[in-house]
């Protein structure tokens, strides 16, 4: 008997080739991200290595003066790091209470319709360009604060920190709210059934259950604050200053990088290379914050 024709056999080699090409193209789009990370690390390390040939790592991390543009030149990055930290702390002092308070209100107290209206409006705060915040800090907040602190200089850490705090409120509030909304209603009902009041349910049941998400929101807010450039450039000042006084002028890592980029430092010079050593420090700091955040999130994550 004749063998039946191979009806199911593939004669569409062409189609196979086309599929393969398409997959390779899509893959190369995805690999751009890896390329970006490698490029960032590469550029930062490449120039920073040259920098550290001339400035010892010890000096970089322990010297308390940063004056690369003046004589005598000191290359201690601590003032810049501290400037960043101080502004971040101030911004968290604003964002955490207002963000968390808003989140609790929207998820536990507000009726559904109100929540649906208010949440996107709060999100607008995150969408306002940072130059607008910088403008606001410099032209409104600082003069206003000078009513209370006459010794406040035009450029200071406090104004920048407060305004940055307002900017990152939605980060804390939205993510915390999402985390709280994800807590099953059955938990709340169990607490109510025991005679708990609304604020007790919110603070003793919901917030602890949503802790992992709330912490994640804090971490996101911190890393955003650390990396922010415009507000601090416009309002915090350009004087690296290791001080505990927020009313003074300081400079953050980001502010410094912006200043040098706008300036006249010659490519290849030591001053130019400070962009990359400070940039590397900034990058590593943000990376560390994100890793801590992931570790914390895993540790406190509750499965429902």
């Amino acid at each position, binding site marked *: *008997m004749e063998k*039946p024709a191979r*009806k*199911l*056999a*593939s*004669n*569409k080699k062409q*189609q196979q080739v086309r599929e393969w090409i398409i997959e390779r193209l899509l893959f190369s789009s995805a690999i751009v991200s890896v390329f970006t990370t490698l490029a960032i690390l590469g550029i930062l390390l490449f120039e920073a290595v040259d920098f550290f040939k001339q400035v010892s790592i010890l000096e970089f991390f322990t010297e308390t003066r940063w004056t690369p543009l003046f004589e005598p030149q000191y290359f201690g990055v601590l003032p810049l790091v501290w400037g960043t930290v101080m502004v971040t702390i101030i911004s968290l002092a604003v964002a955490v209470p207002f963000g968390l308070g808003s989140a609790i209100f929207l998820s536990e107290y507000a009726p559904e319709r109100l929540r649906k209206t208010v949440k996107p409006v709060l999100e607008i705060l995150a969408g306002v360009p940072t130059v607008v915040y910088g403008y606001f800090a410099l032209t409104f907040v600082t003069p206003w604060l000078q009513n209370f602190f006459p010794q406040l200089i035009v450029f200071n850490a406090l104004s920048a920190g407060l305004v940055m705090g307002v900017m990152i409120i939605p980060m804390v509030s939205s993510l915390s709210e999402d985390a709280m909304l994800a807590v099953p209603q059955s938990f709340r009902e169990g607490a109510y059934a025991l005679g708990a009041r609304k604020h007790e349910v919110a603070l003793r049941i919901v917030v602890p259950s949503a802790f992992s998400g709330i912490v994640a929101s804090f971490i996101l807010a911190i890393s955003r604050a650390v990396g922010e450039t415009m507000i601090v450039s416009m309002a915090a000042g350009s004087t690296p200053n290791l001080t505990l006084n927020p009313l003074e002028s300081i400079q953050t890592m980001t502010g410094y990088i912006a200043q040098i980029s706008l300036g006249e430092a010659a490519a290849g010079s030591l001053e130019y290379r400070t962009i990359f050593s400070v940039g590397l420090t900034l990058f590593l700091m943000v990376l560390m914050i994100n890793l801590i955040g992931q570790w914390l999130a895993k540790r406190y994550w509750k499965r429902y």
Partner: protein
Amino acid sequence: MVSDVKIDVRGLNVWFGSNHVLKNIKIGFKPNAVTAVMGPSGCGKTTLIRAINRLNELIVGSRTTGEIFIDEENIYSKETSVFELRRRVGMVFQKPNPFPKSIYDNVAFGPRIHGVSDDEELQSTVERGLREAALWGEVHDRLQDSALDLSGGQQQRLVIARALAVNPEILLMDEPCSALDPMATAKIEALMRKLAEKYTVIIVTHNMQQAARVSDYTMFMYLGEVVEYGITKSVFENPQSELTEKYITGEFG
């Protein structure tokens, strides 16, 4: 040797991860007939029919050994084009899943991807599919409407039309009526009997009355194995296996 078996399953084993779902299945499905596959939840009915159009391969962690011969070609051999296989073996799902497109574009999707681009040919193919699925009369004047506007029963017939449009030989139906009301169910049951004149129909069903009404042969499965197979009337009136009898009398479902 002339075979009167359209689909010959030989020693089929399927694992999902470490879960051995189908155990050494050996069965032959007759052509131009309706075969019902029955059994309690989790017995592997859906996995078995999805093995016939190799749709199990979409699931990550699935592993299949054994062979299935359609007209004496092993569909699991390396030379087989799985896309051509799926053209020849159509499938209707438990919940109707028309694409979010127009009625016309739903039925035309299959022919288009298999290379039909001539407008006239497409139109006649779409009409033929819809007629065969007993839906043409209800939709012929609104082919551009969204398929999602149709009722559940109409959507399921649309899915059947979609499968028929690519000229299959076999139709796999996974509990096609379980999401439908009794009237829609009756229409589809009538359609199944008609389709069996031209195609080989395999239906998975939980509903024994439906199997009795519609199918020529019935296969009963339990925990991944074939327990019984035969002409529907005999299986129901004179089950050979105790398990089959228990299922029929409703001791477990």
